[in-house]
């Protein structure tokens, strides 16, 4: 029996060691880098599975918290520790499990790239950071890893930095995340300040805060208004990281990175970290109906807006990116409606089927050398495994029984049905849109005819090599079966609220999804040319969608306005105060004083000697008076 307290260390640090060794020694040896990196994640996965197995047998031991001294100064001690509970166990399995599939797939996908080792070093660094977020038992440690995933995400989005668009996309992702994290870090310190109001020592620990914050609220030591502000600030981090309205604009651009990166970071794990954070800090928002409602509304707005945008995209990765944003909106909405369990449930199923979809798209891109769905087509014949698994992923995303997406999405809809009818209808509409845009992509890219005009290498298009094919099959398996694994029951730990199921909602949502599929089929099944029929139906509205609601432009204008305003103020301050008063003023003062003092310099030898003598006399007189 391995020491159970050792396992979190193994899980966390094996990817870091891999990243470390690759970065230092193996930047020129792709083979070793690939094997080392993949092996490290497989070790993490094995350790996570062992940990999971152990606590599945001994559930009464949960939650386990281990802490080691990290930063300790008077009045502030921040331990470095792990919190193992049902939430982190589940998340560990997702990150390392889906991660293992994607690492394996990457070996095939990135083969031949001249920066292959750098790719795996960054990916390992990401795995380390993400696992750190999952295992962190206090706010500050979580924040450190939160920033680390942002860095590794930046490195991987801009992996092909020779391409200006990729470098820009990396910057955009990083900068927009800073906007959210600015609020987040203030929120963290606010919670920390509030935790000390009861007289106890302030703390960053989730386990302490989870009991203390509600206590303080009950004793009226903390007013709901202040708590609301703190909760919103923490939520800012979620809005940035999990690509919620209005900060979601970085995620579509992040598709500039290699496709496995999009699958791992920008679909399955990192962007889900925000939802994980909400679940982890649910105690903070639990008793604040206003905050919950706002979160739910932002979630549903995000879900709807992104789903609409996905309808007009022609780049398969962009479609999946907007779909990811939309599904993240669903998760955030679920948390906002009061159930972090259901949010985490959807996170889990989404991790499987969205990673599957991205990897499938990656296989298509790898073999067809295009991301444009209009240049694909008739893939069921040419790439049967990829096409079949992509279809499974699509059905899971659309929420068709018995695929996993049905279960989690249905629980969200059932919850919305009970809590808020307006949100319910918006979410239902989004579900229909989801089915519609995925059907569109499937008909154009896979089922439809090959529209590539200048293509001549038809025989070269085939399924990917086994190392890329098997991850697809594994993920497809989980996309089908994840709904039957009792994930919500596991998160709840066999107590608490009953899993939501509402037959009427289930039938309605399936009906809506089928309607979406039917509409998509009707519109796109017989399109022969490369003209989107929607473009003809909705001229102006279509343009607005193509321009992404002009949100990018609005952000740019806003940033420009404030930048220019601040620059103008600083310029005036600089030229009027610093230069005129400071630099020139000092010079004028010196010159003015000098023009008086220079009269002392007569140039006459005797004058100098006389003054000198007076000084001497004065000195002697002074000494006499003091009595030596």
């Amino acid at each position, binding site marked *: 029996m391995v020491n159970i307290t050792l396992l979190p260390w193994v899980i966390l640090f094996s990817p870091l060691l891999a990243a470390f060794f690759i970065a230092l020694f193996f930047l020129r040896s792709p083979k070793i880098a690939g094997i080392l990196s993949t092996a490290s994640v497989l070790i993490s996965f094995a350790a996570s599975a062992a940990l999971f197995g152990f606590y599945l047998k001994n559930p009464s031991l949960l939650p386990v918290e281990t802490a080691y001294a990290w930063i300790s100064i008077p009045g502030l001690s921040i331990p470095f520790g792990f919190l193992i509970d049902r939430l982190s166990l589940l998340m560990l399995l997702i990150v390392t499990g889906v991660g293992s599939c994607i690492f394996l797939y990457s070996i095939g996908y990135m083969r031949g790239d001249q920066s292959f080792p750098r790719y795996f070093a960054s990916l390992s660094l990401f795995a380390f950071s993400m696992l750190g977020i999952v295992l962190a038992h206090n706010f500050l440690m979580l924040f450190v890893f939160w920033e680390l995933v942002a860095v590794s995400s930046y490195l991987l989005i801009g992996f092909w930095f020779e391409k200006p668009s990729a470098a820009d996309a990396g910057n955009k992702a990083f900068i927009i995340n800073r906007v959210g994290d600015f609020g987040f870090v203030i929120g963290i310190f606010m919670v920390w300040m509030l935790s000390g109001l009861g007289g106890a020592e302030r703390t960053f620990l989730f386990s302490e805060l989870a009991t203390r914050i509600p206590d303080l609220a009950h004793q009226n030591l903390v007013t709901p208004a202040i708590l609301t502000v703190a909760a919103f600030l923490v939520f800012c981090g979620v809005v940035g990281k999990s690509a919620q309205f209005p900060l979601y604009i970085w995620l579509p651009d992040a598709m500039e990175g290699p496709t496995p990166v999009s699958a791992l970071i920008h679909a399955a794990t990192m962007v889900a970290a925000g939802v994980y954070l909400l679940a982890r800090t649910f105690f903070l928002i639990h008793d604040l109906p206003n905050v919950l409602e706002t979160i739910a509304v932002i979630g549903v707005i995000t879900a709807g807006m992104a789903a609409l945008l996905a309808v007009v995209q022609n780049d398969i990765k962009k479609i999946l990116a907007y779909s990811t944003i939309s599904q993240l909106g669903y998760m955030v909405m679920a948390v906002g409606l009061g159930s972090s369990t259901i949010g985490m449930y959807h996170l889990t199923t989404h991790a499987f089927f969205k990673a599957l979809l991205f990897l499938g798209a990656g296989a298509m891109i790898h073999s067809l050398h295009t991301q444009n769905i209009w240049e694909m087509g008739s893939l069921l014949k040419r790439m049967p495994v990829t096409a079949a698994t992509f279809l499974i992923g699509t059905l899971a995303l659309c929420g068709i029984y018995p695929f996993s997406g049905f279960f989690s999405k249905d629980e969200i809809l059932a919850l919305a049905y009970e809590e808020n009818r307006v949100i319910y209808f918006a979410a239902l509409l989004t579900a229909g849109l989801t089915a519609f845009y995925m059907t569109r992509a499937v008909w154009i890219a896979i089922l439809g005819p090959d529209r590539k005009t200048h293509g001549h290498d038809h025989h070269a298009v085939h399924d990917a090599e086994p190392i890329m094919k098997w991850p697809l099959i594994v993920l497809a398996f989980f996309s089908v079966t994840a709904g039957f694994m009792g994930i919500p029951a596991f998160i709840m730990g066999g107590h608490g609220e009953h899993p939501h199921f509402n037959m009427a909602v289930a039938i309605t949502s399936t009906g809506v999804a089928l309607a979406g599929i039917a509409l998509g089929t009707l519109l796109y099944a017989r399109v022969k040319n490369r003209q989107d029929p929607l473009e003809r139906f909705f001229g102006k509205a279509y343009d607005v969608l193509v321009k992404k609601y002009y949100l990018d432009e609005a952000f740019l204008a806003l940033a420009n306005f404030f930048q220019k305003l601040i620059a103008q103020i600083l310029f005036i301050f600089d030229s009027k105060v610093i230069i005129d008063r400071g630099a020139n003023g000092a010079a004028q003062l010196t010159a003015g004083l000098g023009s008086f003092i*220079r*009269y002392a310099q*007569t*140039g*006459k*030898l*005797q004058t100098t*000697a006389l003054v000198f*003598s007076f000084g001497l006399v004065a000195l002697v007189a002074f000494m006499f008076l003091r009595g030596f």
Partner: protein
Amino acid sequence: MISLHHYLTVSALLFALGLAGLLVRRNMLMILLSIELILNAANLSFVAFSSYWGDLSGQAVVFFTMLVAAAEVTVGLSIAVLLYRKKDTTDTRELETLKW
């Protein structure tokens, strides 16, 4: 009996004489001479104190001062010579270039 006070009085008179010459005279050579007087006033009091306390270090300092005075006069006289060549005078009133 010549006491310490006598020596010190002579020394003070010498010093005052030297200082007065320094301030009043315009001729550079006279100024240099006045400086010598001041130095010698100091030497006299050094020797007087040395004999009074029975400590020879005062006399050692006097030798040192003489040496410095010799060097100072050498430099001072060469400046005077250079000045004379340049300005045809040794009057310090002509030396005004160091003023504002």
